[in-house]
């Protein structure tokens, strides 16, 4: 499992794609710093920056880039065959990929969210945002890893989930929020450190249970799909 994780991490950080992880966290921290530097009241910028940018964009987009990168790229270029032709339980391969995806996404999203939270309200809010971001990163990673195995266009489908399902439908159609990881993250952070800046629309039990279902269900489904992985039949 450690070898798979090592190859996955080397592959992830060896690609230019990893540079995409930088701008969004920098933008989040930069905006928070500017607002703080100009002494703007956090009630005026907190929700827009922390929830509107941090939780609705930075966390899911980073998770999408990393989650689809750890497996989808190998599926696309065919290098996955070198890992699959080994006597490794498919569970170990998926868990190694998930470990890297979840870990990298969690760090890349939780650190800037922690900083933004501290600047907006204090350390408690920063910690709450970081913890919720870690939970969200795991759930998103499991979902996007699974998408890499069920579709040839995981990035496109992932964007549809983030922009259309969570961003658009989540705002207007209340029923869709039950299947929105963004909403779980907002609720978890809000219950850990209520500030009035976050607007959680699902209950805490729903958030916790559904986040676990996304993470565990996505992982189990991905393990099963990888077990039946077929190489496209390019006959020659």
């Amino acid at each position, binding site marked *: 499992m450690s*070898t*798979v994780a*090592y*190859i996955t991490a*080397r*592959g992830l950080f*060896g690609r230019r794609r990893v540079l995409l992880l930088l701008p969004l966290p920098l933008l989040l921290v930069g905006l928070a710093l500017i607002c703080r530097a100009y002494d703007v009241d956090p009630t005026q910028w907190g929700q827009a920056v922390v929830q509107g940018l941090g939780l609705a964009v930075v966390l899911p987009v980073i998770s999408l880039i990393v989650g689809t990168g750890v497996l989808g790229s190998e599926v696309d*270029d*065919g*290098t996955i*065959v*070198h*890992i*699959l*032709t*080994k*006597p*490794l*339980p*498919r569970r170990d391969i998926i868990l190694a990929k998930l470990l890297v995806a979840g870990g990298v996404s969690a760090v890349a999203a939780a650190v800037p969210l922690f900083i933004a939270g501290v600047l907006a309200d204090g350390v408690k809010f920063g910690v709450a945002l970081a913890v919720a971001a870690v939970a969200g990163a795991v759930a998103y990673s499991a979902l996007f890893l699974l998408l890499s195995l069920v579709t040839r266009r995981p990035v496109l489908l992932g964007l549809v989930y983030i922009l259309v399902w969570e961003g658009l439908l989540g705002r207007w159609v209340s029923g869709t929020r039950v299947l929105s990881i963004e909403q779980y993250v907002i609720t978890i952070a809000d219950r850990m450190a209520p500030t009035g800046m976050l607007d959680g629309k699902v209950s805490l039990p729903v958030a916790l249970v559904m986040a676990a279902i996304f993470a565990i269900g996505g992982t189990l489904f991905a393990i099963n799909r990888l*077990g*039946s*992985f*077929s*190489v496209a*039949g*390019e*006959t*020659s």
Partner: protein
Amino acid sequence: MSVVELQNVSRWYGNVVAVNDISMTLQPGVTGLLGPNGAGKTTVLHMMAGFLSPSRGTVTIDGSPTWRNPGIYRQLGLVAEKEAVHGFLTARQFVVACAKMQKLPDPAAAAQRALELVEMTSAQDRRIETFSKGMRQRTRVAAALVHEPQVLLLDEPFNGMDPRQRMHMMELLHSLGDRGHTILFSSHILEEVEQLSGLVQVIVAGRLAASGDYRRIRRLMTNRPHVFAVQSSDDRRLAVALIGEKSVSGVEIEAGGLTVRASDYGSFTRALPRIALGEGIRLRRLLPSDESLESVFSYLLEA
């Protein structure tokens, strides 16, 4: 010693039948998998390697199914046609990683042995992305051999190799076959198959058209006259004598000797020395001229 077995295997994609009711058994030794483009060779290899499920039938190695059975890779090595390798790793890192994933007791030593086998030790510390096509191919072969699998499947293994590397790879596969490994390689270059293996599995339009030693296959094609090039001390007199032989269906006299068409391989090869002896003619050369793999293959395609 491992045996790969396909029993009544079919594979279809929607309405398209890629492989149609193929049964074959691969014994230890080197076997060539032949077929024109689109015949279904890669589909068969992928099913053997556990990367495709047969729509019908079974694919097994020593009785164990290859589909959804990762344990099979302890005894199976695959060199796929697609060249993709983790280019950010050096050849050594890549082969060591493969050895570790095989859970070998001494991955570094196993990797070193495999890299030596394919003559890649001098470049082992370079990143794979800097390699030529042939070097990448040899690195992939080293990765597939690192755990010394009993069964080795190779899809177009000589692609991109220069003649010397090709020769070396052929020797390597030969020696593995001689040591009891079961090796199947696909190729569209008949010369390669001819040099590497007498045993072939010929797939045409998704069906197994022929299986076995190609010279023997040729001899079984009784509906096609066998062509021999004959040189003797008196070609014209030999031609007259041969035309009276039942098994001879035609004789052409050419500048360099005779071209004899025989309807029955065995009867002709028995009759020729008797006729030559009776006529007092000395035979200088007798060569079956359409027993090459190319002739056998083209006959099978025309059939």
